[in-house]
């Protein structure tokens, strides 16, 4: 029972992170029907930006005196950075291909992903970068169950970001424009929505959520690596598909489920095969219910 509860908490933490990454996939897919392979790299870039900013602050001595302020600032800066990076990537690699074949856009996205991860490797080196250890200590203990402050923080930040995103998408004018563009690009352009701007903005929002996730993963595991975007990227995509691609609530739910399955699978079945569970879910969902658990009817013109 204790083991179960402990795993539940770990799964919640991991699931929240997957949910944040999955949102980027699902939003981009919803609006331009493209799997953004480079999304995992935004996540990695966010993690790196976090390590750089926090190390810099630690070197200046601010991190020790105002840890939370520094973390907040670093996270905000990293999110802004990744937002701009995503917009730039979109302009270079995706916008020229909007009218071309699906295959061309996918290959371009894949190329961008390889380009970015190797760019990270070349500029930052192949070795793991450690996060400054300012937050990793301490936590609550209930009997044998340990909930670290870090986990609580991750869950809280995730919830905060998800609420913020929900408000943005469902309550504001920008959100309305985004939803309209996702439904019908031509019609929304006719009523005066600048669809290029909206697409750009969608990439930016998705990437900034991924950047936040990247920092939290870096803090949680203590280090970042240039390949860190690849596997979480696929798993988050599995989460997005599970929730019904294009569906924001579904992506959140899907992320949580994938996180839980991975943690419980690793705990109860086999730790070595933990990466396999997410893929199996992905394949099973695509096979039995391609629209996902919350998905609407998807037309099958996806070539």
């Amino acid at each position, binding site marked *: 029972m204790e083991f179960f509860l402990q795993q539940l908490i770990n799964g919640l933490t991991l699931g929240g992170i997957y949910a944040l990454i999955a949102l980027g996939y699902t939003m981009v897919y919803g609006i331009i029907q493209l799997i953004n392979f480079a999304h995992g790299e935004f996540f990695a870039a966010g993690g790196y930006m976090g390590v750089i900013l926090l190390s810099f*602050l630690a070197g200046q001595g601010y991190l020790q005196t105002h840890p939370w302020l520094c973390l907040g600032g670093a996270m905000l800066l990293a999110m802004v950075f990744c937002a701009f990076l995503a917009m*730039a990537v979109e302009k270079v690699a995706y916008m020229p*291909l909007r009218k071309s074949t*699906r295959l*061309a856009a996918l290959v371009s996205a894949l190329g*961008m992903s390889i380009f970015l991860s190797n760019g990270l490797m*070349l500029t930052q080196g192949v070795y793991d970068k450690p996060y400054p250890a300012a937050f990793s200590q301490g936590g609550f203990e209930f009997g044998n169950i340990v909930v670290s402050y870090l986990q609580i923080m991750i869950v809280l930040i995730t919830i905060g970001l998800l609420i913020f995103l929900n408000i943005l998408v469902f309550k504001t004018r920008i959100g309305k424009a985004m939803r309209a563009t996702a439904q019908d690009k031509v019609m929304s352009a006719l009523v005066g929505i600048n669809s290029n701007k909206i697409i750009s903005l969608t990439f930016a929002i998705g990437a900034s959520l991924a950047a936040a996730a990247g920092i939290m993963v870096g803090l949680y595991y203590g280090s970042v690596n240039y390949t860190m975007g690849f596997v979480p990227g696929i798993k988050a*995509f599995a989460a997005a598909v599970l929730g019904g691609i294009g569906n924001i609530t579904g992506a959140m739910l899907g992320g949580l489920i994938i996180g839980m399955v991975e943690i419980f699978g690793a705990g109860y079945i086999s730790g070595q095969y933990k990466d396999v569970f997410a893929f199996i879910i*992905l394949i099973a969902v*695509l096979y039995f219910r391609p629209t996902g658990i919350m998905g609407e009817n998807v037309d099958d013109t996806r070539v």
Partner: protein
Amino acid sequence: MVWLFGLLWPLLGIHADGTLSFTRAFNVWFYIFAVTLVIVVVVVLQKQGILDGFGRSLGAGKTGLTAVYARTPQWAWIAAVAVLALVFPMFTGRYEQDVAINVLVYVCLGLGLNIVIGLAGMLDLGYIAFYGVGAYTYALLSVNFQIPFWLSLPVAAFTACIAGCIIGYPTLRMRGDYLAIVTLGFGEIVRIILNNWMELTNGPNGILGIKAPGIFFPSFAEGFSLEHLYLKKLHYLYYVILLLAVFTVIAVRRLNISRIGRAWEAIREDETAAELMGVNTYRLKLLAYAMGAIFAGLAGAFFAARVRFVSPESFTFLESATVLAMVVLGGMASIPGVILGALALIVLPEIFREFELYRMLCLGGAMVMMMVFKPSGFIAAKRLGRRSEEREG
């Protein structure tokens, strides 16, 4: 474009100890910037028509060349290439032969993937898994049962084909981009299994002691007998892979111009229309997938026989991406294109050894550039549908 670089300049030039050092990042981004600048300038100039004069002379040269090409019969070209390939090991050293073997292995892989991507139009990102299956099949057969290479070759192709069907069966009902991510997932699953199934595959340590291919060589020392020789010499291996590559080229060419090839191309251009015309899309897609897997299995078995060691390290996603890049850069659905792609992607990194680190970076960049500027590749296939040409403009 410009502000992408504005953003990338400072990217990650800060060291963990809090000091700023931009030299390393500066170097990297400087190379990228220089290359991109050249390409952008060329494209802009071309658009404004400044390069027209240059382009005309180039065009004249090209038409001259094509005229020469058209006048010489095709068998002459093929014969020339064949002779060149046959005498190649006689005038070159170990290093060149090694590179040539690599190129030919990737030609097999690229042509196999070309069936899946180029002909049937399905993006397969887990292709290297079949290569791995083929390699491990031969490795296990050779180490555990001492089965010779030539006998294992069809077995490896068969197991790869079975693996292709297992993977293809549930995934091929999906279309396009879902397929891409599912095959990516499957590729990873195969790698993880190879890595963790200690009893069978010896995990990350790999399998050692695989036998090289052998032949029966007539020997007249004591009367007439057949002597079994292992082809450990590099130039013998070169001929083995040359044989495989030629077989692959012929097979893919025959498939391409057959009824099946046409059906695949119909599926690529418009799946719904193909189905309406009476093409059994599901079965043909599965067939394309299995065919691709077979060639990967053959190449994999050869790889195991040549290196005589297999480990999961050789079958990562980056390998899949490299093969994909060969197909995409050379020209989808075009056999000379894929061969050119394999040649370019193996030989160029050998020439630019000092830029080894930049290999994957350039690969990624080149994939994006190619898709943006010339989606049909360097040597475009003759029978690409109107649809794709239209979009090229």
